């Protein structure tokens, strides 16, 4: 991508994580799958960045790259800078798999919670065993102290009788309880960044609301930043300070949550919003959908990824060049040739896109 990395919109605080031009390629038999194609974003300290997109758009791989837990055979390039208050930032991409630095970042500086609470715990180890493991690795080697922290964490996430819960096994917990335990495990090390990969997708709506509230409360208490990944715009609207919309491995729109929801710029974002059912919509009015499916980004052509599905695509432009992600209004970035700023940034003559 050609745009220089500008500071994220509405960022008053210092950056915690800066992802710069991240590219993750998965070599498959069918060809190279570009799961993440030049992604750049910044997560400020203590803030929440929402990463939205349909399944298969590269959200999860992008998040996994921060902890270097993407599939082993994937090829990653770009930079992921983790900032420290007292020393120069570390580029996570450049760390080796056995680096002590990486092991202390994983689960220590940045912890992750996953979509599937059912399979995220080892079935043959007790909850306590798995929770204490994190505490031993990142907080204290002292047994009594670790136990105290574990009990306090379970209490914090609202699990009744925490001391007994420590002795239980994952299959004795309900889905909501497991996700709470997962959150307790992730936060036990007091990470500065929490990566939440669709943490409520597998839960009931009522449990979902509880878990979301829990995460917001814990963020307020512990002051950590959150990278919140979801395909659910409603959840993102509730959780995020800033939103990045991903499509086929690229960020197509990036703005403060309010700006994004009030004035979406990219046709894909508009399509996503139109497809959310809303109370007050006239009955009988069909719910809109974005036609087609997300194409699999194997051997991607040089074109806007959304071109084949875009209702306002400009033939001869959108299928010939990749639109860069630049500011179209102050602090609101969009990667669409509908906007003259984007046309200019791509180096195309002004007027090339003025077909409409």
């Amino acid at each position: 991508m050609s745009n220089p990395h500008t500071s994220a919109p509405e960022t008053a605080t210092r950056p915690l994580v800066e992802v710069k031009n991240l590219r993750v390629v998965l070599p498959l038999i069918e060809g190279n799958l570009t799961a993440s194609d030049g992604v750049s974003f910044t997560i400020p300290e203590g803030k929440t960045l929402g990463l939205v997109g349909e399944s298969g758009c590269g959200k999860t791989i992008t998040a996994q790259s921060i902890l270097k837990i993407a599939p082993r055979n994937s090829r990653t390039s770009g930079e992921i800078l983790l900032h420290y208050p007292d020393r120069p930032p570390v580029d996570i991409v450049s760390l080796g798999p056995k680096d002590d630095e990486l092991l202390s970042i994983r689960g220590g500086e940045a912890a992750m919670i996953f979509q599937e609470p059912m399979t995220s715990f080892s079935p043959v180890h007790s909850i306590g065993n798995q929770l204490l493991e994190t505490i031993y690795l990142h907080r204290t080697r002292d047994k009594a102290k670790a136990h105290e922290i574990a009990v306090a964490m379970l209490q914090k996430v609202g699990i009744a009788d925490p001391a007994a819960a420590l002795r239980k096994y994952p299959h004795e917990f309900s889905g909501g309880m497991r996700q709470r335990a997962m959150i307790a495990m992730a936060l036990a090390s007091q990470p500065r960044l929490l990566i939440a990969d669709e943490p409520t997708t597998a839960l009931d709506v009522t449990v979902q609301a509880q878990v979301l509230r829990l995460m917001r409360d814990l963020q307020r208490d512990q002051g950590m930043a959150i990278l919140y990944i979801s395909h659910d715009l409603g959840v993102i609207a509730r959780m995020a300070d800033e939103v990045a919309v991903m499509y086929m491995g690229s960020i197509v729109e990036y703005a403060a949550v309010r700006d994004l929801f009030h004035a979406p710029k990219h046709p894909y974002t508009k399509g996503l919003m139109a497809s959310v059912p809303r109370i007050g919509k006239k009955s009988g009015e069909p719910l809109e959908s974005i036609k087609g499916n997300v194409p699999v980004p194997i051997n991607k052509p040089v074109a806007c990824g959304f071109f084949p599905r875009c209702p306002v695509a400009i033939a001869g432009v959108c299928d010939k060049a990749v639109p860069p992600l630049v500011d179209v209004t102050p602090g609101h970035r969009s990667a669409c040739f509908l906007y003259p700023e984007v046309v200019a940034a791509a180096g195309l003559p002004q007027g090339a896109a003025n077909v409409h």
Partner: protein
Amino acid sequence: MLSYIVRRLAYMVVVLVLVSVVCFYIINLPPGSFIETFATQLDAAGSPATQAQLDFLTVRYGLDQPLHVQYWNWIVPLVTQGDYGYSFEWQQPVWTLLADRLWLTIIVSLVSMVFVYVVSIPVALYSATHQYSVGDYSFSLLGIIGLAVPNFLLALVLLVASARLFGVTPTGLFSPEYITAPWSWEKVWDLMIHLPVPVIVVGLAGTAATIRILRSQLLDEFQKQYVITARAKGVPEGRLLMKYPFRVALNPIISTAGHLLPDIVSGSTIVAIVLGLPTIGPLLLRAIVAQDTYVAASCLMLLGVLTVVGVVMSDILLTMLDPRVRMSRAN
């Protein structure tokens, strides 16, 4: 947990009773009896027995009585006094025939099992963590050869090779001077020297199978979310491998361990004959051919006991190791 064990042991007794009935019935299925086989042998030897002699033997061995009475006469002393009956052919109590062979069978089997696990677990761990490497392919190739080569053939090859290379034929489990000698440290040492060839031959197929099962189990587990969770927590790779995927991948190995024991015992019969091992297999074969009812029934019974005890043991072990199994079995 305790109630589960008690229940399993109670089922075990029931199964063993059924096994004894079926064993005895099957032994008596072929037409004729030991007396007829005996008469044919005497005929062939040129000194035919008189009908009176044969009738006397029939009555003496109780072979004129109905089958259920014969069964009763065998099972009651067996259970109450540990008396396995009397061998028609060897003219000895069955237990004297069995005692030494039983211990040697158990020794060969257990050592083979240890061999299977000691070799297959590290190889499977290596193969799974180095999938599609040269080493992985080499072990896979060796494994397929190990599964495909009949073990008696391997036994013959090793015999010939050993005879050609070292001038020793490693048959039997003892050197001739120790066969009848009482147990001593020298005899134990002699046994140790003779064990490797039979153990390799008997254990090879099991080793190859275990490598394949454990390798694919491990590869399966590597993909699981809980492994990624543990990695995301900052657990170092080596510890992660042993604590999570390996631990879970062991379950099918534990649950099949009970079957491995009788497999090794019965599967090694031909090997035992080729290598001249004084184990139960050859004795059983001879007893069945000669219709030596009590020897055959007792051998089968012992194999049955080994199977059932092995399965129960691996079930109980699995219950202790896997909380999910424990939970479902507690109800």
